[in-house]
């Protein structure tokens, strides 16, 4: 068992990280701090999850969101998708293992992965609406958000949701406000089976390695850690019993990366686009300097008068 984060003191403590620890800020350039904080991570061990949704309840409670009462359509997923009021969601899959003919009930806790290279942040046009702290947490700063939805296009995991009430984007914060004062995420705290644990990224990898060895010894030959390198690794990781097929876990992307379309949009288009506009303006300016105005001459006017003058007048 990985020791849970101890209960904090009841005395107020100064936050452990803040604006001085930003390594990325949307639509802005930041000078990263000289010293990077220890990277943190949340590890979700899918093999240990019993689908009780205590984490969902804890998330609602801590973040004080008010998801709508839903309807039952015969599936366990509740609500049916992430919403601006539901930052994490247990996704249930019934999967028939072709090798054993066993029905496996796969339960994955979906939510923001806190990518090391966050596509949401790359896409965001509003300065400071998305930030990344040096400990790896990616956070949405609602007062800077303009509600454009670009983060949705940028995210390889389909995570951010825009509220139709506040018109700003929401997602899991990794309980940045709790972690700043030495706590663990609310979901990890609530999890009765320790399927969710929180610590430094290195500790989590080490803990995962132990879990994977255990799973392998029980016949899950492809057990492994989901820490996708395409997005530089994530600060929310999964232990999967079938790490070779992440897509069976309710469509967890196999080898996710920021979409090349988004890269083109936020990369070459931006620079080439401004260059083309600048070139058009400069070409006009240069042409004017060289060619000067194109003026109508006296002869032109006379020619027109002659043309009309020849007409029979009343």
């Amino acid at each position, binding site marked *: 068992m990985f020791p849970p984060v101890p209960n904090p003191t009841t005395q107020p403590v100064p936050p452990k990280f803040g604006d001085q620890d930003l390594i990325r800020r949307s*639509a*802005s350039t930041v000078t990263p701090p000289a010293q990077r904080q220890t990277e943190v991570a949340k590890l979700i061990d899918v093999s240990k999850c019993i689908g009780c949704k205590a984490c969902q309840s804890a998330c609602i409670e801590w973040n004080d969101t008010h998801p709508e009462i839903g309807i039952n359509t015969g599936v366990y997923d509740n609500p049916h998708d992430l919403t601006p009021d539901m930052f994490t969601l247990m996704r249930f899959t019934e999967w028939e293992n072709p090798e054993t003919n066993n029905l496996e009930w796969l339960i994955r806790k979906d939510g923001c992965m806190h990518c090391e290279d966050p596509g949401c942040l790359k896409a965001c*046009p*509003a*300065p400071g609406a998305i930030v990344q702290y040096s400990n790896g947490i990616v956070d949405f700063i609602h007062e*800077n958000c*303009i*509600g*454009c*939805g*670009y983060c*949705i*296009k940028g995210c390889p995991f*389909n995570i951010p949701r*825009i509220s*139709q009430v506040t*018109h700003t984007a929401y997602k899991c914060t990794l309980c940045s406000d709790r972690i700043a004062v030495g706590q663990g995420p609310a979901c990890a705290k609530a999890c009765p089976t320790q399927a969710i644990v929180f610590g430094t990224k290195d500790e989590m990898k080490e803990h995962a390695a132990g879990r994977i060895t255990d799973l392998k010894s029980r016949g899950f030959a492809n057990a492994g850690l989901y820490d996708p390198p395409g997005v530089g690794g994530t600060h929310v990781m999964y232990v999967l019993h079938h790490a070779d097929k992440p897509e069976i876990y309710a469509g967890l992307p196999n080898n996710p990366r920021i*979409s090349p*379309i*988004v890269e*083109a*949009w936020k990369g070459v*288009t*931006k620079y*080439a*686009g*401004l260059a*083309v*506009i600048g070139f*058009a*303006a400069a070409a*006009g300016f240069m*042409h*004017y300097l060289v*060619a*000067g*105005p*194109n*003026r*109508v*001459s*006296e002869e*032109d*006017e*006379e*020619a*027109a*008068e002659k*043309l*009309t*003058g020849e*007409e*029979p*007048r*009343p």
Partner: protein
Amino acid sequence: MSTDYDVEKGDSVHPGKPVTVDRYTAGARVNHWITAISLVLLALSGLALFHPRLFFLTGLFGGGPLTRIIHPWIGVLLFFSFFGLFLRFWKANLWKREDGTWLARIRDVLTGHEERLPEVGKYNAGQKFVFWSMSALIIVLITTGLIIWDQYFSVFTTIEQKRWAVLIHAIAAICAISVWIIHVYAAIWVRGTIRAMTRGSVTGGWAWRHHRKWLRELVGKASKGKSTPAE
């Protein structure tokens, strides 16, 4: 009859010194300026979101959220307003044989050697290029714009489709802004043009120099119109 398409409603010649030629009706001018103002506002509000360096432009629209809200609505206005212009102008912008020749001599156009160019109708090939490329770009912009208008239309398309749409929207916007620059520059460079869209008329000399075929046609029509009742 072959060239009749070129003369639009309201075009007419007034003999005098100088001759004046009515080119745009009041309706066409109002329509044009609504389109122009919406396009400029769209370019400014769009560019604000396009590049972080230009985000300050959101200040013109009352901040980031308001810019995000207002941009697509101006887009809808632009679409309908441009559609009005399209109905007015499309016929005179149909491609004609002399347009190819005109375009082949673009060097003479740029160096101001009008005498080496073929006589052209109400619009030359450059103006037709602006007209048709804007028509196409605005169709692309409204289509992709609706796809990325998340507040109302997010449920109708997939994220992958939205990614393409926003990329194409940005590229089309760059093209539209560049075409707009060419359009405005041409109007400034060719003196006597802007009054066509302010007062609605140009001088006879301007029409003779730049759109002689159109002028001839108008003069021909005027004389016909005057002589017919007498016959």
